[in-house]
């Protein structure tokens, strides 16, 4: 029997993505098969590649004593959208918690001149304020200050698993009674620092990426933000909230293997998937779809395919899997939250999005690689999987709110 005090539900979703603002915009764009990945030049001098950019982002009114970085700006836009999506007045969020993930923080506000001569750089007009936005905690502060939220607030940074981990930790916090509701998600912009870093690692595909394809060549970076409004079922029903989805299970672990490479056999990720299903008290047959991490790098995708082989072996039918990074790139600290939103979209609509440009998939008998057309089927439960540099893995299991 469901314990309404221990069941975590999603009552709002906010999105800032290359498709535009809002879940509807994201859903319409993805269902149409449109990819936001495009040739990009000069994000730093000499850069030429493929990214997914948000071209129009309205400036925010000045209500925060510090400077908004682009990371902050994306987060604030997504939170505003989540609040609008929930249909609630802002005032209801006053005692809420904020758990915001990112990896870039205020690096967008800084240039090489800071490292060359910090004192002079800070003395330039606006220099100190630019420096203030550097810590990755600033994003959570900016959200709290902008919306007048005064519950527990913190930032998470666990590389590319950050956004999913923020959601998992927020769920734990709700079970602890730390706040009546929590706004949890991630935000990350494109910036020269990370583009240069991934470029130096030769991890970027110059063309639109092809996750899980035998001929995949790397990832494309994107930018965006996604925020979920989480609360207990008891709280949501008490205020007659519209329940979009139920977070049935979540798990986090670490490969303890390598700084940048996943454990080759995907054993850490397979364990993480198993732990999330144990928490949800379900068998692997009950999962109808996995939204994969699927970056398109040679190392990630084979490890992930191996993880699915281990975690879903013995099912009655192969597990349907797709990577939606083929639509809007890898949004780093926002990726896990954006893909959680895509997974919620799937359980709400029963529409399983294919991986774009997947022509020759990795051989994996336990996996049904989704490609070609959108598949429509009843989808009681779906999983979103995230991994990151340093070996962190996260799995989130969602059910439709109608359940």
């Amino acid at each position, binding site marked *: 029997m469901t314990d309404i005090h221990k069941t975590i539900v999603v009552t709002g979703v906010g999105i800032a993505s290359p498709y535009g603002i809002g879940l509807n915009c994201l859903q319409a764009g993805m269902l149409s098969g449109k990819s936001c990945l495009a040739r990009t030049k000069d994000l730093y001098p000499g850069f030429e590649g493929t990214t997914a950019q948000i071209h129009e982002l309205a400036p925010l009114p000045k209500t925060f004593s510090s400077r908004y970085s682009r990371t902050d700006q994306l987060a604030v836009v997504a939170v505003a959208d989540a609040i609008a999506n929930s249909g609630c007045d802002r005032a209801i969020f006053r005692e809420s918690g904020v758990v915001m993930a990112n*990896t870039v923080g205020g690096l967008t506000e800084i240039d090489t001149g800071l490292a060359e001569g910090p*004192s002079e750089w800070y003395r330039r007009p606006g220099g100190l304020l630019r420096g203030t936005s550097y810590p990755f905690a600033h994003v959570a502060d900016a959200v709290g200050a902008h919306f007048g939220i005064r519950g527990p607030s913190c930032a*998470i940074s666990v590389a590319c698993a950050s956004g999913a981990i923020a959601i998992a930790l927020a769920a734990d916090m709700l079970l*602890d*009674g730390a706040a009546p509701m929590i706004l949890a998600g991630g935000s990350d912009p494109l910036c020269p620092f990370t583009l*240069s870093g991934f470029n130096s690692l*030769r991890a970027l595909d110059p063309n639109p990426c092809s996750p899980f394809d035998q001929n995949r060549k790397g990832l494309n970076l994107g930018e965006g933000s996604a925020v979920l409004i989480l609360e207990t079922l008891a709280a949501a029903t008490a205020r007659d909230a519209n329940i979009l989805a139920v977070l049935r299970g979540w*798990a986090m672990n670490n490969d303890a293997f390598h700084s940048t490479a996943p454990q080759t056999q995907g054993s850490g990720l397979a364990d993480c998937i198993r732990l999330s299903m144990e928490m949800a008290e379900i068998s692997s047959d009950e999962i109808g779809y996995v939204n994969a991490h699927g970056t398109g790098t040679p190392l990630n995708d084979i490890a992930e395919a191996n993880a699915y082989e281990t975690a879903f072996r013995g099912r009655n039918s192969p597990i349907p899997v797709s990577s939606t990074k083929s639509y809007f790139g890898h949004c780093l600290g926002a990726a896990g939250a954006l893909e959680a939103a895509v997974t919620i979209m799937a359980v709400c609509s029963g529409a399983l999005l294919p991986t774009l440009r997947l022509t020759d998939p990795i051989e994996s008998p336990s996996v049904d690689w989704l490609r070609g057309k959108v598949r429509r089927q009843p989808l009681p439960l779906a999983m979103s999987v995230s991994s990151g540099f340093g070996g*962190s893995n996260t799995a989130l299991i969602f059910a439709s709110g109608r359940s």
Partner: protein
Amino acid sequence: MTPNLPPVTITGIGSVSPYGALAGLIPQCALEPTSITAWTTAGLRRAFLVQPFRPAGVVPGLKTRRLDRLSAWALVASSLAFKDAGIDLCQMDRSRVAVVFATAFGCVDLTEAFYLSAAAHGWSGTDPSTFPETLPSAPASHVSMFHGLRGPNVTVSNKYFAGEIALIQAASLLRHGQADLAIVLAGDALARTLYSWYEVAGLLSPACYNSDLLSEAGGFIPSEGIAALVMESAKHEDSRSNAHTYGRIHSGRWTAGGQPVEVMRQMLGDFVPILTVCSGNGAPCATSPTSALAREICGDRTVIILPQPVALGLAGTGALFHLILALSTRPTNGQALFLATAANSGFAALLLELL
């Protein structure tokens, strides 16, 4: 974290700080800031600094050559904390060990180095080995890799209460059965860009510029270092015959606003703390209001241990040092409230039982 859940215990302490690399409590001694030599300064500049040391000299076999100082310190401090706890990780199910790390600024040394390499060679010519080590989560990842810890691995931050949040989140993971044991770390390294920000913002103490002035001269003296605590679920601790318990965490709260007195009285329930350990946010003006708040909550008879400058200099990640330094004063056993406030940005509080 609600007050009614089973407590979690602190069974090991390790630190890398201006006091050195230490397992267990920190010997009581007065510490003065030392001169900055890592970068060229216009005249004397002082801070509480970790003196250079060879990590492999403390933890045999440790390789830290390409790592940020913060990652290297995390490896040393975590090793010392496990040693202090008497834990042989080889005998443990390491998929049940979590890492929770708090940092305000992350790996600033290598972030600076990455920017300098971009300045020298262009953004197309940056060093691939440096980039992954600039991530704020790199120290926590290295702790997992070095010790083979396969449980949850989380890096958290908050402008004022990052250390307190790490303790509360680790306790939550233990209580929800997502781990049996957690290594909690908090700290930051002091880099040129950070020190310069404090300086240009006018936040530094006169003692940073004048060696004749003591650290008590007032103002903010930046500090660096990392502290580590081993935390165990009560069930796990009971299964170890050699466990030494420093304290038990009963509950914890933090908020970005609201009424601290009301929330903390609710949190304390029937507990009446006999000791209050006050933290702060690095700003000298924060300590006095925190003490006053503690007095208002706990009454006049409560013993208050004030924060020490070395821990205050760590700003948002000083909580673990505040706690270790307070425990090192050998306070009376009993219940303690560990409290931090930041004037307009809320408060954090943990209720501990000292043993």
